[in-house]
């Protein structure tokens, strides 16, 4: 029973990580309709920036997040304006471009760090919280609560503010949104930058948990796509709950089946969801087909 509860807790905490990484990706995917293969690299860059803040200025990750998130916001603006805006209506070229960015970012960081592995782990992740005999790392608990708070905050932002309503209108129908006087291009820019900033938050909070490597983005991106497909395109609660579900599945399968097969497990989730319910648990039916092709 205790093993079961421990796996449950570690699954939920892992799910928090996936939720945190997926919310930004899903925002970009659902609103701007761009498959951003470089999202994992945004997280990776944020992790290195956080490490840099700590190593150079002694700023801890939980303070650095307030510097790193705006930094990634700016990076998001630059990438969207220079690379993705010109390719707005060419999904195939977007795939090439974001994959090119993935290779570019990954190897630039590799070249700068010369492949040295950095880690903040010693300083931060050794703190363990113990409650009713269940143990959890402090850093992971922080990630879980941050993911929950961000999901809630984003839902409020989308439903209550004017900018959020504009984003929702664009998700539903960008042509009609334009006719209603919404500046669609600015909405794209804002959303993409927001998605990148969320990757920045994720990177800063994950920095104490993982050993940094230029390739770490690859660990997140496939899981994040699985979460997005599972939860539903453009749905914030979908990404949050989808993340928790993928985390739980991975945790249980890792214990009861084999940890080496976790990617195969994501894939099975992926394919089953795609076949049974391509719009995801909370997405709009049909969203995966329409919208990605047309809409000028």
């Amino acid at each position, binding site marked *: 029973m205790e093993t079961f509860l421990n796996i449950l807790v570690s699954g939920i905490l892992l799910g928090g990580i996936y939720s945190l990484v997926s919310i930004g990706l899903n925002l970009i995917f659902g609103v701007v309709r761009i498959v951003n293969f470089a999202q994992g690299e945004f997280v990776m860059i944020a992790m290195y920036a956080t490490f840099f803040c700590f190593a150079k200025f002694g700023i801890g990750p939980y303070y650095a997040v307030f510097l790193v998130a705006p930094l990634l916001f700016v990076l998001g603006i630059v990438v969207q304006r220079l690379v993705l805006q010109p390719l707005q209506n060419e999904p195939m070229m977007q795939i090439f*471009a974001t994959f090119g960015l993935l290779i570019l970012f990954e*190897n630039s960081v590799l070249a700068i760090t010369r492949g040295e592995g950095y880690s903040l782990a010693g300083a931060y992740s050794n703190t363990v919280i113990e409650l009713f005999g269940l143990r959890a790392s402090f850093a992971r608990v922080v990630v879980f609560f941050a993911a929950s708070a961000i999901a809630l905050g984003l839902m409020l932002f989308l439903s209550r503010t004017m900018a959020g309503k504009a984003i929702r209108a664009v998700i539903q129908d960008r042509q009609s949104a334009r006719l209603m006087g919404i500046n669609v291009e600015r909405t794209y820019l804002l959303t993409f930058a927001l998605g990148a900033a969320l990757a920045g938050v994720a990177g800063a909070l994950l920095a104490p948990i993982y050993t940094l490597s230029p390739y770490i983005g690859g660990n997140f991106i496939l899981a994040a796509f699985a979460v997005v497909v599972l939860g539903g395109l453009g749905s914030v609660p979908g990404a949050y709950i989808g993340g928790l579900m993928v985390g739980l599945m991975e945790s249980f399968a890792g214990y009861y089946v084999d940890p080496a097969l976790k990617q195969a497990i994501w894939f099975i989730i992926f394919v089953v969801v795609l076949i049974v319910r391509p719009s995801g648990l909370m997405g709009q039916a049909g969203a995966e087909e329409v919208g990605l*092709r047309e809409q000028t």
Partner: protein
Amino acid sequence: MTQAPQQPTTTPPSFGVQLARYAGLIALSAVPLALLWSNPYWVNVLAYTYLFAALAASWNIIGGFGGQFSLGHGVFFAIGAYSVARLYLDVGLTPWIAIFPAAALATIIALLISWPTFRLRGPFFAIATMAINEACFALANYSDRITGGPRGILVPFRAGLSNMIFIERWKYALLMFAFMVVVVLITVWLRRARLGHYLLAVRADEDAARAAGIDVLKVKLQGMALSAFLTGIGGGLFAMYVRVLDPPTLFTLPEIGVKFALIALIGGIGTIIGPVVGALLIVPLENYLRGTLGGDIPGGHLIILGAILVAAALFLKRGVVGAVLAATQRSKRSRG
């Protein structure tokens, strides 16, 4: 609805004329081999170049003509490679024959994978195929008994024609060149065949193609089968060429699955000769950069490759071949 790129409306020249034209272009692509014959380093690079030209041309069948943007071709490549190695080592079958059952297996797996994923469109198909590639990567690492796990399979060096293992590197270059010629001939045929026209129709507008009475799923599956079969053969040739097969060599996306698409993009997606042009540009360039930058800047050659990929997506959407065609059309029009 975005406007589909303007297709030339003139009727294509007769099969003989077209064949002669492509024969000329292919002969041209053999020129570097003739010039660098005595330089083993560059002969080696050219063997890779021709192999990847053939693989990109195979990808181009479904990815270019059919518009189904697969990032999972590394799977079919790996199945071809592992199967040939296993058949050669365990059964003692000569690779010349083993490539066919290996390619058939790759085709069967491709059809099983594609049947559910082909209902996805555009980027969703690309993500799903990428996920398949990563899942198979993990499975290949896991299933020790078939793939040798992370250590991989080592094919011992036993030179001989029947083993498809040669001491002289130029024999490999010729073998890969021959394979490239075969794949290009198949695409020349395909472009004129009914299936080729159906694939183009599906790419241009799936719903319109369906309305015109085309069985879209069947056409996609046929295109994928042909593409995967040729990719499987390429994997088998690769296995006997490098003779060390481990999962990172066969599944790493920027090195294999995405590279097929990248080469086709640089040359010209959906053109017959584009993949050959792309491979002749990219593979030697990459080797050159790896040689000059690799020591000083880790990953330096990939930084440049990534930048090329982004730039090509932005400014060279129809590849070198597309740009050249557009330029000649413009000059024709201005002349009269």
